[in-house]
Structure formats: C-alpha cells, structure tokens
C-alpha cells in the first residue's frame, strides 16, 4: 500500500534532478491543450503518457505544462514542444501511442516527428 511516508524517499531521489534542472536554461517545455475540446478529444491520456515516458527515461530537463483552447479544436489533442533556440513544433491529433516517439525522436534526439505535426495535417 502506498503511503505518504514514501514521499520522503522520493524527495531524496528527486532532489538531485531538481538541482540539475535549476542550473540549466535549456529545458524543453511540453504544453498540452487541456480545454473542454482537448479533454473531450483525449488530452488526458496523452498528458499522462508524457509524464510516464519522461519519468521512465529520467529526463530532468523536460517540463509538462497545460494550456487552454488555442482555437483549433478539430485538431485536438494538440501538444506544443518548445525547445530553446528552435522553432515551436505543434503536434496535432495526438494519441498515447504517438507519445513515445515524440519523446525519443524529438525531445531526446532533436528530430521532430514530421508526420504528426500540424504541417502534415494539411493546414
């Protein structure tokens, strides 16, 4: 059974990562659209998949954030990836299955997954 006591142990583990994160300005931001349209289209499992994948790979320079409706509801779930010094990449119609590839190809290896982007959706 999970208990709050475990948090103490987690804290020690996380603290090194936090220190690393504080020192670096090159953090990646993953922003998930979580308005009514995004949630109805399946944003929640996409968001939890990002958290899971990032935790699994122990990536300590990636932050997952949320935003409201950006006005392209028919393309939700939408995920924007901000990498310092690079243009923002917008992924549309995201699914949990697509998350692992975005994390490995784009966030880890710096190669955006072109076929999932808004450009490939014929916008």
């Amino acid at each position: 059974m999970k208990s709050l006591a475990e948090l103490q142990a987690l804290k020690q583990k996380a603290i090194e990562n936090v220190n690393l994160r504080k020192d670096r300005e090159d953090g990646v931001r993953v922003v998930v659209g979580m308005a009514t349209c995004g949630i109805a289209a399946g944003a929640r499992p996409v968001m939890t998949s990002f958290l899971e994948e990032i935790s699994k790979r122990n990536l300590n320079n990636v932050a997952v954030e949320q935003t409201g409706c950006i006005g392209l509801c028919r393309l939700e779930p939408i995920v924007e990836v901000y990498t310092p010094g690079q243009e923002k990449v917008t992924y549309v119609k995201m699914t949990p299955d697509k998350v692992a590839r975005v994390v490995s190809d784009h966030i880890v290896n710096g190669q955006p997954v072109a076929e999932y982007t808004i450009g490939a959706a014929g916008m």
Partner: protein
Amino acid sequence: MQEISLNILDIVQNSVRAGADTIRVELFEDIPSDVLSFSVEDNGCGMDEEMVQRVMDPFVTTRTTRKVGMGISLLRSAAQATGGDVELRSKVGEGTFIKATFSHGHIDRQPLGNMADTMTSLISMNGHIDFYYKHTYNGEVFEFNTKEMKEILGEVPLSDPTVAAWLREFIGEGIANIYGGVEES
C-alpha cells in the same frame, strides 16, 4: 465526454482559470441510495448571479477570460440523462461551488473513469494550487490533500515526473482500496 472523470477534469479547469489557490474535489458514491455525485469547490474569482444563470447555456462563454464554455452544459446534460442535475452557487470574490448528481445505477450514467489520472493531471500541472480530495464509496473513505504532500516534498515540486508517477499509483490504490479491490496492509 465519455467519462465522469473527464467532466471533473474539465470543471476543475474552470476553478484553475478563476485563479483559485484551494480546490476541493469530493466524490460520493452510495449504491444503496443509488447516488453518484461529485462537487468542486474553489476560492477563485467567482461569478455574479447573471453569469451563474447563463453558464448552463452551451452558447455562452466569456472567452476572453475563458471562465466557462461548453463544459457545464455538457455536464448538465450528462447528469440529467440519468435523472440527476447540476447545482451551482457562486459569489464574486469568494468562489464557486458546483455539484453534479447522477443516478448510480442508471443505464445512461457514464462510467466514472480514471480519477487517478484526472487528479494526477490537475495536481502536476497546477503545483501552486492546494487540492483536497475526498472519495466515499458505500461509507469507505479515501482522502488526501496536496498541502501535506508539499510539506514533505519541500523544494521538490509536485510537477516532478517521478512524483507524478507516484501520485498516480497512490491515488489509484487509494480508490481501489475503498472499492474493496485491495486488502488493508
């Protein structure tokens, strides 16, 4: 929305956007009296009487402040489909209370869905907000608050992916436990 837990995620977003720093989510399930209800209470900016009347209308949104939109009307139709309803009280500058009631056994009631994922999403995305969660199932209670967790974690934020992964399991187990799925250890 396919699940009640997604409606809850959506409704709580209103509280987030209303600038609340404390949000209480309560879920109440009681099979003998055939009730499933949830409430969300916040200390955000609140709404005036006119707005409270209008938010039930699907074609109303403040849009510029993004206080409300389709969300509450979607929730109301989901609740009414089971013979339930939505109750909404709000006061400018004090906060908002919203409660949705469903008939637990009604064939048109959406499944509750994954509350652990809903709460984990909300908590890890909104570290500055204190969340209180209370879930009652046939008298068995699971509750926690993130204020207590923050005290333990200190400088480590709730948005830390490792913490989020733990949170998801913690809430999942807590809920399974009141459903009788996990034995007391």
